[in-house]
């Protein structure tokens, strides 16, 4: 009896959160499924996978998918490598605190406030890239500029937790720095890298903020992303297309996340941690 009361009490504590979360996230997510198999947002006729089919055939969606994949494929590995190298240097030479602060500051800067700078440097005043076919370079640079800080903080925390004995033992064995880096530091830091990967995926969607501020709803086609596609379908009231695209998008993200978790587990088993 007592246990039962305790159990229902737990439910009571999450209830406020759960009600709001269900109404605003879970129920919409499930209801959306119905839209994605209906003729339109205003006509419930069941059309099975027609909308998914249409979406995959549409040029705009394919362009958006291609750009988003290209962006993630380039930007995510690049920022992980850059932030790891920067973290390693800061950690090894014990760099002054302000250097770390400088690198993490951009994450706090609203997109709209630095748009003037980016328009000038990558538009009229410097390297005129934003209106050319190389616009994606600008987006990748802005993404790296804004998000290195998150990864740097996580990597620095990971590096400071490495066990010193293992590294010292390898020094006694005569391993040079790069051997030590390759055979000891990088494998030991892998769980951190997996976590950095997840954070980076989440942050990669926020690059839309910067693109939208720079170029609005219909940007240079080279940087037209899935978020633009979905926003514009919303504006055109094509809910069935939007929800279909959203589920494709969500499925890809979940597969990505699952692979990362799987890799993490496998790695943990290999190095004997759990």
């Amino acid at each position, binding site marked *: 009896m007592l246990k039962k009361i305790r159990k229902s009490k737990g*439910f009571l504590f*999450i209830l406020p959160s759960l009600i709001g979360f269900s109404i605003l996230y879970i129920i919409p997510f499930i209801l959306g499924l119905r839209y994605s198999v209906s003729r339109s947002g205003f006509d419930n006729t069941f059309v099975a996978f027609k909308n998914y089919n249409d979406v995959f055939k549409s040029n705009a969606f394919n362009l958006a998918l291609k750009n988003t994949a290209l962006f993630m494929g380039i930007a995510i590995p690049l920022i992980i490598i850059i932030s790891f190298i920067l973290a390693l240097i800061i950690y090894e030479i014990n760099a002054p605190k302000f250097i770390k602060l400088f690198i993490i*500051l951009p994450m706090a800067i609203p997109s709209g*406030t630095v748009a003037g700078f980016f328009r000038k440097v990558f538009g009229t005043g410097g390297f005129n890239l934003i209106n050319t076919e190389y616009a994606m370079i600008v987006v990748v640079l802005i993404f790296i500029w804004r998000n290195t800080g998150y990864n740097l903080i996580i990597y620095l*925390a990971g590096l400071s937790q490495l066990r010193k004995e293992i590294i010292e033992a390898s020094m006694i064995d005569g391993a040079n720095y790069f051997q030590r880096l390759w055979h000891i530091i990088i494998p030991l830091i892998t769980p951190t890298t997996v976590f950095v990967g997840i954070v980076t995926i989440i942050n990669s969607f926020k690059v839309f903020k910067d693109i939208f501020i720079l170029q609005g709803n219909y940007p240079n086609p080279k940087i037209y992303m*899935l978020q633009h596609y979905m*926003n514009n379908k919303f504006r055109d009231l094509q809910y069935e297309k939007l929800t279909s695209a959203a589920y494709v998008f969500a499925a890809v993200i979940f597969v990505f996340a699952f692979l990362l978790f799987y890799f993490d587990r496998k790695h943990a088993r290999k190095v004997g941690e759990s």
Partner: protein
Amino acid sequence: MKKILLVLIFIISLLYVFPIIYTFTNSFMTESQINAENIQIIPDEFNLQQYYSIVTNKAEYFKFFMNSVKLTVIIIVGQIVIGIFAAFAFAKMEFPGRDLIFVIYILAVLLPFQVTLVPNYLVLDKIHRVLNIKILDTHIAIILPGIFSSFGVFLLRQFVRGIPNDIIEAARIDGAGYGKILFKVVLPVIKPAVFSLVILTFIDNWNLIEQAIIFIDTPSKLPLSVFLENIYYGDYKVFYAGAVLYIVPALLIFIKGEDYLKEGLTVGGMK
């Protein structure tokens, strides 16, 4: 070697602050210098006129500024109040379906806003029609999804999990109820987590864009994060001054709370 690396990382760190410094220095420049072809970083003369004109002529600037303040503060407070109870329950109490529900919360953290956009819009529209409460095109449409975003629950729960069960059991034996344990035992311990949630939620909502461009139709209700754009196309000079005034609160909070960021960002890695 160490010196070379130090110089190198110093130069790299300058690249990271350069856009911020540029925005600051441009806010003091004359219009002709801002419009110069090349990139100028040092003002020819120290000009405060645009700040003056924001204060005097652009009372509307502060209206948008206050929109941002209102949205950000309410979302932060709401997310913490609701999140603390849920986080405590997920970490330290038992109820049916707990782990499954928590997995759903985590998955929701991963999704971009656009994925639940339409259904979200329709739910808010339905609430309007059934209960006759206007939500779309009001700040509530942004505040509600912000407060109930699962990120806060996720982050706080990871911290609460780190508190040893013995402490909570001991308090129970002393006769404390769950509510008392939450406020007297758990809350003092997870203060750093609450601070880090404040900073992370602040960063996100001070740069609020996606929700505003979908849910808000009336321009005067936009947060400054979106409206700054219109100032840019209206008047460059005033834009830079307005941008600086908008950056300053973010910088202050960020520099003050920098140490808490580490806690907030690394906790997700805990099992």
